[in-house]
């Protein structure tokens, strides 16, 4: 159940990230072409920056799921059996706390940005939306880590 939800969420987020990445590539090309024919569109560069933030944020769940975040396994590799699983549970618990706090703080930060009335430099877009999206991505990341933790607890209990 949790596994299926996690898989779905991480897939949806990576589709959104991929779409943002393709859009980013297209917009930069468009920007170069339009400027060279003397019709530059104001604000493409800031849109690209915000799209970049979305690309990275939306990729968080998928990256975690495929074990993309690198770690030093010097000690953990030497462990086997229960100690190894216990360590895995502990590591995912601490990671979960860190990412949950980050998600919560990003959400609060987005609220502050909204209240301050800050908008993007050239297009006047509300900047808190991107921050909110990053907060939600960290939330989805928490779900992935939680799923990994539950799996590790299962393995620990089985031993």
């Amino acid at each position, binding site marked *: 159940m949790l596994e299926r939800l996690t898989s779905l969420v991480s897939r949806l987020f990576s589709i959104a990230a991929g779409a943002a990445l393709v859009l980013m590539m297209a917009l930069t090309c468009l920007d170069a072409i339009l*400027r060279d024919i*003397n*019709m*530059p569109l*104001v*604000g493409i*560069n*800031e849109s690209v920056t915000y799209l970049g933030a979305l690309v990275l944020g939306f990729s968080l769940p998928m990256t975690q799921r495929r074990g993309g975040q690198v770690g030093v396994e010097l000690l953990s590799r030497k462990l086997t059996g229960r100690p190894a699983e216990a360590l895995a549970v502990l590591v995912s618990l601490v990671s979960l706390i860190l990412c949950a706090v980050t998600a919560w703080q990003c959400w609060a930060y987005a609220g*502050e940005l909204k209240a*301050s*009335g*800050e*908008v*993007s*430099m*050239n297009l*006047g877009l509300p900047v808190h939306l991107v921050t909110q999206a990053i907060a939600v991505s960290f939330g989805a990341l928490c779900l992935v880590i939680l799923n990994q933790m539950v799996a590790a607890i299962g393995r620990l209990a089985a031993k």
Partner: protein
Amino acid sequence: QQTLTYSNFFPPTHAQSVLAQQWCDEVAKRTDGKLRVQYFPGQTLTKAPQAFEGVTAGLSDIAMGCFSYTRGRFPVMEVVDLPLGYQNGQAATAVINEVYAQLKPKELDGVEVLYLHAHGPGLLFTKDKPVAKLEDMKGLKIRSHGSSARLVQALGGTPVTMAMPESYQALSRGTVDGSVHPTESNLGWKLGEVVSYRTASFPVAYTTGFFVVMNKAKWDALPEDVKATVRQVNQEWIAKSAAAWDKADEAGLEYFLSLPGRKDIALDAAESARWAAAAKPVLDEYAKAMDERGFDGKAIVSAAQAALAKHNAAK
């Protein structure tokens, strides 16, 4: 005895960063070490756009930053960045401090404003095509940023928005045909190497307002005598900052004109009036947007213009 942190986005070698460092030393000296300030230049503690919120969030106790990096957050203070026709940095700095003292905008309520300053006149520089009249602007791609982009549009040019660090290359390779920036940047950002003409567009000169603010709670906790000393130092540093901007402009102009083939193009009285008229919609647009946000836009613009009229004449 208290130790505070001061975050500045200017790199340590910049004149305004050197001055800020001296502010820290002066405060420590005059309070007999009761207030010490640790200085973090060059965005090492908070990034330029996060300077202000870094102070309210407590990441640094004091910060220097600029109002225009966070559009919409300082609607009233943005009036200073409009192309009002600044003659020099003294006038711009006097205007920003006067506008603040007069309007006491709510947007700055969350912090203790130590002092404000603003750079010298932002003018038009072009690479291959000299601009002597409004018509010359047509079809020129001009590097600009935020509110100066709206000025370029009003003057009939094509604004290309990019941040300062990208400007040199964009000009050097011809990605853009010109740029609006203070004369100081010809030396500071080496832009003088890649532009050939300065249009003395003083009638539509803009500026960028900078703040030095302190965390409210930290300020309130200071003893009265320390506060009084800091206030006194601040007053002196307003003058020093303004003078530093003007000195930097002089050096920038000298450097620019020392390069071969550089020209300074003056606008006569009739042309000046045309430029000012062309830029007026930028002011009106600002006033209208402010009305929509529930301010009296016209009054704010008038306050800034009145202050400028006084200080432009003073020099």
